[in-house]
C-alpha cells in the first residue's frame, strides 16, 4: 500500500470537478420538486445540455456561450415536459421518463459529426493572490467559473426558498396547490418557471460534463448522472445544503475510490466500487432522521376546476 502516490491537493480539486455536474442538475430538480412537480427527465435534459453546450462552444469558440446555450437547450426541452404535464395534464412520471428517452435520442441526432472534436478549453479563473496560497489555492481558488456559479446557486436557492416571498409562494404551491390556488397564486405559472429553471440547471450540468470534465462529446455520455441527481434530491430531503453535501460526498468518494485502487489499499475493489453509493445514501438517510418530508403535492396533477 502506497498512499503517498495520492496528492491530496489534486484529489480535492478533482473532487470538485466530479461533483459539479450532479450538483447543478440536482439543484434544479430540487426547485422543481419543491414546486410540487416530479420531473424524471433530468437525464434527458442533461444530455441535451451536454450536446447543445458542446456544439455551440465548438462553433463559437467560446465555452461561456456554450454554457448559456446549454442552459437554453435544457430549458427548451423541459418546456416540452411543462406543456405535457401542466397544460395537457399528462402523468408526470410517464412524461418525465419519455423526456429522458427523447433527450437521449435527440442528443444522439444533434451530436452527429461532433465525435472526437476537442472543445475550446474552459479556463480556470486562477484568482490572483488567492490561488497562489499553498494547498488552499489550488483546491479552492483555481477552478473555472462554473464551479463558483454552482456554489453561488446553492446559496441563492437556499436563501430564496427560506427567506423570500417568491420562495414562500413556490413552497406553498408545492405543499398544497389547491390552497395556493385559493389564495390567488398562479400555480401553473409558478410550476412552469420552476420546470424551466430545472431544465436550465440540468443543461448546465450536462455541459459541464462535455466541456470540462471529460471534455468531449460521446453519445449517452451522461451515463446515469441524471438519475443520481434525482436520487440525491430525495436523499437530501429537498434541502439545498444537503444536496451540496451529497454531491460532494458522491463525487468525492467516486474520485477517491478510483485513486485508492492503484495504491493497493487492502479493501476489496468491489467495496471501493460501491462505496460512493453506500456512503452517500447512508449519510443522507441518517441526516433525514429529522422531520423532513416530501412536498405535499409532489407529483400530483393540478387543475383549477378541482
Amino acid at each position, binding site marked *: 500500500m502506497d498512499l503517498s502516490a495520492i496528492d491530496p491537493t489534486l484529489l480535492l480539486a478533482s473532487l470538485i470537478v466530479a461533483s459539479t455536474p450532479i450538483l447543478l442538475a440536482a439543484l434544479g430538480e430540487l426547485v422543481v420538486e419543491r414546486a410540487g412537480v416530479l420531473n424524471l427527465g433530468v437525464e434527458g435534459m442533461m444530455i441535451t445540455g451536454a450536446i447543445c453546450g458542446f456544439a455551440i462552444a465548438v462553433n463559437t469558440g467560446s465555452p461561456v456561450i456554450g454554457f448559456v446555450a446549454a442552459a437554453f437547450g435544457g430549458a427548451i426541452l423541459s418546456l416540452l415536459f411543462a406543456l405535457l404535464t401542466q397544460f395537457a395534464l399528462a402523468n408526470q412520471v410517464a412524461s418525465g421518463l419519455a423526456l429522458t428517452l427523447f433527450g437521449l435520442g435527440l442528443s444522439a441526432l444533434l451530436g452527429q459529426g461532433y465525435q472526437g472534436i476537442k472543445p475550446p478549453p474552459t479556463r480556470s479563473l486562477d484568482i490572483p493572490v488567492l490561488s497562489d496560497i499553498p494547498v488552499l489555492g489550488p483546491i479552492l481558488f483555481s477552478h473555472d467559473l462554473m464551479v463558483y456559479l454552482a456554489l453561488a446557486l446553492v446559496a441563492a436557492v437556499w436563501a430564496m426558498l427560506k427567506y423570500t416571498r417568491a420562495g414562500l409562494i413556490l413552497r406553498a404551491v408545492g405543499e398544497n396547490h389547491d390552497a395556493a390556488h385559493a389564495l390567488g397564486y398562479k400555480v401553473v405559472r409558478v410550476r412552469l418557471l420552476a420546470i424551466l429553471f430545472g431544465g436550465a440547471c440540468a443543461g448546465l450540468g450536462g455541459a459541464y*460534463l462535455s466541456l470540462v470534465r471529460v471534455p468531449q462529446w460521446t*453519445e449517452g*455520455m451522461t451515463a446515469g448522472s441524471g438519475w443520481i441527481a434525482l436520487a440525491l434530491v430525495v436523499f437530501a430531503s429537498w434541502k439545498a445544503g444537503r444536496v451540496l453535501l451529497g454531491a460532494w460526498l458522491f463525487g468525492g468518494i467516486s474520485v477517491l475510490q478510483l485513486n485508492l485502487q492503484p495504491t493497493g489499499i487492502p479493501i476489496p475493489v468491489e467495496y471501493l466500487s460501491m462505496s460512493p453509493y453506500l456512503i452517500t445514501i447512508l449519510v443522507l438517510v441518517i441526516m433525514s432522521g429529522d422531520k423532513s418530508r416530501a412536498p405535499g403535492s409532489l407529483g400530483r396533477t393540478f387543475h383549477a376546476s378541482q
Partner: protein
Amino acid sequence: MTLTRILSAAALTLGLALPALAQDKTKVGFIYVGPIGDGGWTYEHDQGRLAVEEHFGDQVETVFQESVPEGNDAERAIMQMARRGADLIFTTSFGYMDSTINVAREFPDVKFEHATGYKTADNVSVYSARFYEGRAIQGHIAGKMTESNIIGYIASYPIPEVIRGINAAYIHAKKVNPDVEFKVIWAYTWFDPPKEADAATALIDQGADVILQHTDSTAPQAAAEKAGGVITFGQASDMAEYKPTPRVSSIIDNWAPYYIARTQAVIDGTWESTETWDGIAPGMVEIGEITDAVPADVKEEALAMKEAIASGDYHPFTGPLNRQDGSAWLAEGEVADDGTLLGMDFFVEGLTAEIPQ
C-alpha cells in the same frame, strides 16, 4: 410441444426443400452494450452490421438495440428481437452470455452468436478476437516510451478477456523495460465516459504517462489530451480523432468479414454452432497506424512483432512465465494453450495489482 415441434420440423423441411420460394428477407439482429456512437467497441460492431447490409442489400434486413444493460434487461431485449422474427442474433458483450443461452433454449430455430463468451449450444456460437495479440504490441510501445515507468490501465470487469489483456501488455512492457510498473483501476463498467475520464485522471495524477484502456469510450483519450504529455492507445476502434497524440496506435476490431460469413451461412442453411477465436492473421484484430510520436526504431520493432504474431512465429504468451504467486506456468519456449487463455483468472509474475474475486 410435440405438435409445435412437428410443425416447425415440417416448416423447416419445406423451407429447405423450396429455397426459391423463401422470399423472406433474412433478419439479422444485434444487441449492443453501449450507444453506436461510443467511438469504440459498439461503434465497431455497428460498422460490422452496416457491412452486412451493404454486402447483402435487399436480401437481408438488420435490426439493432443499443445501450442494453447486462443482466435481466438483456434477456428481455434478446427475446423481443427473437419474437420479432430475427433469424440470427449477435449479442455483443460478455455479460449477455447467460441471457443468450436462456433465450436460445426457447427459440431453437433462431441462431445466436455471442461475442467473447464461452457457453455454446446447438444454436449458439461464440466468437471473439485475440485482442491480446494487439495488447502485446501496445505493451512493447508503452514500455519503450514511458518515462515515469508507470503505466496506467483502466480495466472494466475482472473477466478472462480483460485479465489476458493486462497480462499480455505487462509481459511485453516488462521485457523492454524492467522497471515498469502497472497501476490498474477496475471501473466496473464498459461505458461511462465521466467515470472513464476520472479513472484516467486519477492514474495520470499518480504519475502514469501511458494510459491503456479496456473500456469502450474515447473519454480516457480526452482526459489524456487535457493532461498533456501522456500517450494512449485506441481501444476496439481506431479512435483516430486523437492522432497523432495522445493516441499513438490502436487495436481495431474488424467484425465485418465474420458477420458477413455467418449471415451467409444462415441464408445457405449451413450455419452450425462454432467457436471462433481469430487474431491478427485472419484480420479480425487490426493494428491502427503507429503515429510519428513513436520513435522510428520502436515503431519498427512493433511492426516486426505484429508480423511475427501474424505468421505464427511468435505467441505473446511464450514461456518462461510464472504466475503472480511465483508458481511456474509456462516453461522456457512453451506456449500457452487456448483453454488456459480463455479461462485466464490469474496475473503473471511482477504485476502488483490484484484481481477482484
